[in-house]
C-alpha cells in the first residue's frame, strides 16, 4: 500500500448514488443491470467503482479480541447486571410511594392524624376564633360599662314608678 497521487475518477452524477449501493451489493434487478451496462461504456463510473472497492475496505479498523477478553466481558457485565437488578432504576423507588395500596394507607393515616390533632390540640394552639385574655377583657369592658347604664335606667324606672304611685295617692 503506497500513497498515490492519481486523479480521482469522475462518475456520472446520475449514477453516483447507485454506484455506492452497487459496491455494497444493495442494488438489484433492473437498476443493477442498467448500471452494469452503463459501466461497460463509461470509464468514469467504472473507475469510481474500482476506487471504492480499493478504498472502503481499508477504512475498517478490525479488532478481534481473544476468548479471555470475551470471558472477562461476560463476567464483568454479569456483575453490572447484578448491581443494576439490586439497585433498580431511581424511579422505581419513587413509584413505590405512589402504589394504590400505599397511597390509600397514607391518606387514611393523614386523616386520622388531622382528626386527632383537631380533637386533642384544641386549646393548645391560639386560633383566630379564640381571642387572648386581654382582648377578651377589652371586648367585655364596654359591655360592663353598659351594664352600669342599664342599672341607672332601672333606677329611673323606679323613680317613674314612685312618681306615679305618689300622684295616685294624692288623687
Amino acid at each position, binding site marked *: 500500500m503506497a500513497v498515490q*497521487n492519481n486523479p480521482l475518477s469522475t462518475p456520472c452524477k446520475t449514477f453516483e448514488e447507485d454506484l*455506492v449501493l452497487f459496491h455494497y451489493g444493495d442494488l438489484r434487478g433492473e437498476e443493477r443491470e442498467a448500471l452494469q451496462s452503463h459501466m461497460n461504456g463509461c470509464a468514469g463510473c467504472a473507475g469510481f467503482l474500482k476506487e471504492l472497492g480499493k*478504498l472502503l475496505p481499508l477504512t475498517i*479498523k478490525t479488532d478481534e479480541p481473544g476468548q479471555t477478553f470475551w470471558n472477562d466481558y461476560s463476567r464483568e457485565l454479569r456483575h453490572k447486571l447484578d448491581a443494576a437488578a439490586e439497585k433498580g432504576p431511581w424511579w422505581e423507588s419513587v413509584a413505590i410511594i405512589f402504589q394504590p395500596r400505599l397511597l390509600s394507607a397514607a391518606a387514611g393515616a393523614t386523616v386520622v392524624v388531622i382528626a386527632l390533632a383537631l380533637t386533642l390540640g384544641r386549646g393548645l394552639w391560639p386560633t383566630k376564633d379564640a381571642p387572648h385574655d386581654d382582648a377578651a377583657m377589652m371586648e367585655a369592658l364596654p359591655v360592663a360599662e353598659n351594664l352600669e347604664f342599664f342599672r341607672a335606667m332601672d333606677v329611673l324606672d323606679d323613680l317613674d314608678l314612685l312618681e306615679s304611685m305618689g300622684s295616685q295617692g294624692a288623687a
Partner: protein
Amino acid sequence: MNPRDEELVASAKNGDRGAFEELVERHKHKAYHIAFGFARDREEAKDLSQEAFLKAFTNLKNFDGRSSFYTWFYRIVVNLCLDYKRRQKRAPADEFDETVERQVEPSHEPRMPISPDQHVFAGQFSRKVDVALEALPAKQRTAFILKNHQGLSIKEIAETMQTAEGTVKVHLHRAVTSLRQRLAEFA
C-alpha cells in the same frame, strides 16, 4: 432448538436473568464491533457496549416488540456511541495518538511481520481515516459505519436510525463521497 430472541425477551421480562444473559451472548460481538466502529478503541467499545446491555436490561419492560429486539438494541448502542462522540468532541483529545497507535498493533494472533515503513504508513492512514470519519455529520457516520463496518442492510440501518431507506441511501452516498475526497491519496 434455540429459542428466538422474542421468546428470550418475554422470559427476561418475567424476571428470567438467564434469558437476558443468553441475549447478551448472542449480541455481544456485534454490539462490541458497532461500538468499536465509532470509538475505535477497545476499552471504550467494551464500556459502551456493556452500557448498552445495561440500558436494555433496565428498559426491557418498555420494549413493545414492534421492531425486532436486535433493531431496538442496536439503536441503543448507536445512540450511546453518538453521545460518546459528542462528549469526546467537547473534551480535548490529548490521548488521541496513543489510542490510534495501540489499535494499529495486531490484537490477536501474529500475522506477517511488517516493516517499520509499513507500520508508520498504517499509523498515518489510520489517523487520516479517524479524522475523516470524525468530520462526517453524525447521521452520515452512523449510516456509513453500520453499512461499511457491520454490513447491515439498508432496511436494517433505516430501522436502527428510525428513518426512511431513501434517507439512509443519501447519507451513505454523501459519507462515501466525503471520505473518498479526504482519502483521495490512498485511492
